[in-house]
């Protein structure tokens, strides 16, 4: 009897900084073990050997920002048994989703001398707005430990064990003093999903929301607290509008602050 073939892994990139797929290569201690457990069939950043689909597990980095990519993601989905998005761009549109709040035609002319050479959409959107997604891994960038958990869970055919707690819970576990309560430092920790290890409060600054909103964020309450510690509504708006500006809860909180600023 022939040995069962190894699951085929693919990594695809859309609009992004490459940092989340670099996280795969940043698993220095585990990379060769992972490569032993799966067949890396398509990973352009790491290999020139490309095997056509279908793929058993596909990791997608980046957001959809061009008509061509809106077409390509459907093709990727059709070739993938399980599709996992990695990072804030693929999950909510990333920092480039700031265009969703502005005039893209004007953006083009600011950066490029010949805007007519470019093909771009008016919005940057997460992958799930285009095709069904099996699991979304948060973060700007993702945590490589969560990535290993997702790949292992897939290999073991179980649900990934990824917490949806807020950053506050991680801060307590790490023993950080609350920077918002104790020092009045603006912090998005109460409304942001855990996963980073609460690193920013450990470096004496507030969370900037790079893992996106947790499932039940009370941003109205947080916004009031941010204003109480001295943040103007215009600054609160910018605080919500960074790497996950287009995630629904942060988008609404940003819009509420923008309305207040007017």
């Amino acid at each position, binding site marked *: 009897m022939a040995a069962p073939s190894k699951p085929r892994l693919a990594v695809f*990139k859309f609009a992004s900084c490459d*940092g989340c797929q670099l996280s795969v*290569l940043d698993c220095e201690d585990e*990379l060769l073990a992972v490569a032993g457990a799966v067949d890396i069939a398509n990973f352009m*950043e*790491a290999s*020139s050997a490309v095997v056509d689909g279908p793929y058993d597990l596909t990791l997608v980095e980046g957001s959809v920002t061009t008509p061509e990519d809106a077409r390509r993601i459907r093709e990727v989905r059709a070739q993938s048994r399980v599709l996992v998005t990695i990072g804030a761009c693929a999950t909510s549109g990333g*920092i480039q989703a700031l265009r969703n709040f502005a005039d893209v035609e004007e953006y083009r002319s600011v950066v*490029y001398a010949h805007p007519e*050479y470019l093909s771009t959409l008016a919005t940057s959107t997460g992958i799930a707005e285009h095709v069904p997604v099996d699991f979304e891994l948060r973060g700007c960038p993702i945590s490589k430990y969560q990535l290993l958990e997702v790949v292992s869970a897939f290999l073991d055919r179980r649900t990934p064990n990824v917490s949806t707690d807020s950053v506050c819970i991680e801060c307590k576990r790490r023993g950080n003093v609350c920077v918002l309560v104790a020092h009045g430092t603006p912090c998005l920790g109460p409304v942001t999903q855990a996963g980073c290890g609460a690193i920013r409060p450990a470096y004496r600054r507030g969370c900037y929301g790079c893992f996106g909103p947790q499932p039940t964020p009370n941003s109205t309450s947080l916004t009031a607290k941010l204003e109480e510690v001295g943040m103007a509504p215009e600054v609160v708006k910018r605080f919500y509008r960074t790497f996950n500006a287009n995630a629904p809860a942060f988008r609404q909180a940003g819009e509420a602050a923008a309305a207040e600023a007017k």
Partner: protein
Amino acid sequence: MTERTVHVDYISRVEGEGALKVRIAGDKVEEAQLKIFEPPRFFEAFLRGRGLTEAPDITARICGICPVAYQMSACHAMEAALGVKVEGQLRALRRLLYCGEWIESHALHIYLLHAPDFLGYPDAIRLAKDHPQEVKLGLALKKVGNDLMTLLGGREIHPVNVRVGGFYRAPTVDELRAFRPQLERALEMAERTVRFTATLDFPHIEEDYEFVSIRREGEYPLTQGDIVSSKGLKIPQAEFEHHFEEVHVPYANALQAVHKGSGPYLVGPLARYALNSDQLTPKARSMAKEAGLGPVERNPYRSIIVRGIETIFAIEESLRIIDHYERPAEPSVPLPEVTQPRRGAAATEAPRGMLYHRYDLLPGGLIGDARIVPPTSQNQKRIEEDVRHLVERSLVLDEAALTDRCERAIRNHDPCISCATHFLKVTVERS
């Protein structure tokens, strides 16, 4: 007359999405176009209206491979605009963080992206099956760079501890001293890396590059100093835009830079080495000699050795900084209010070459205008020249072999297409 086109639709083992198209008529290359199809992300547009202190964290997201370079160029440009000086231990800590990024990025390129080309493998995973020692050594060396960034910055990709004016938290002396053994092991690994790269088989070619990098007396360049070139240019960083300009070409979502009145130029390890090899640290200098490098290296394939030498420098520099470290009283210097329009510019040395930022600030401290010139857009035109020369030397090759050679010629320069907003696809047309 025969016509040929060589297409590389998607260049692998580079950061970002790009392609190459070469059109050949007879024995002449009519056109070599490095295409960047990485979608535009419009950083310079959405930076307008953001606070000056937001630039380091926002621009870091241009590139997950060299976020520290973006943070450093953004901070220095803002500090130039504000007239703020960050010196002493804070300056040293910035160099230390930057060394972590150089170690990580150079080890990544040497072992995972570049070495497979010389040894005939499609990637490092398959290379590891036959050469496990080398790949494991590369991963271990890379990890030391990442661990150094994590120690200073909280994490290796998009570190969280950098601010305009310095840091949020300065490490303690004990935290840094505890890292010394890892760096000592890394130094030994980096020496083995240089010896390994020196044994590779290199094509015998030299390119006539105009090299451009930063130079500051007394140190190998990372931050601060003049911008110098091998054709005798020497200017303050603030004058970059007077001497270099960006051109938007129809086939790329990136802007290509040229030296006005001179043409395409090269930034990166070969350029830094050519213009600063006299300022290397002792071990880096002796290993360069042992590996057979002269004071200038013009063979782009041998950039893999120069990256090894720069890795040794980064480790020796890290050890020196740690040995002289005293914890500063404050982790950052205070910033003045912005009461009138201000402009500030700065370039620093990303692992793959000089990265320039310029900001115009409005009263109140919001960004009115931003300009970012990444290393790969500066190199793009010069890489096209490399490819042109390669193809003219290699016309006898069949399509597959020629395409493979073209990809290698591009990878020599470790292009980061995400930075330049591009990705590579190679096309060769013969006519």
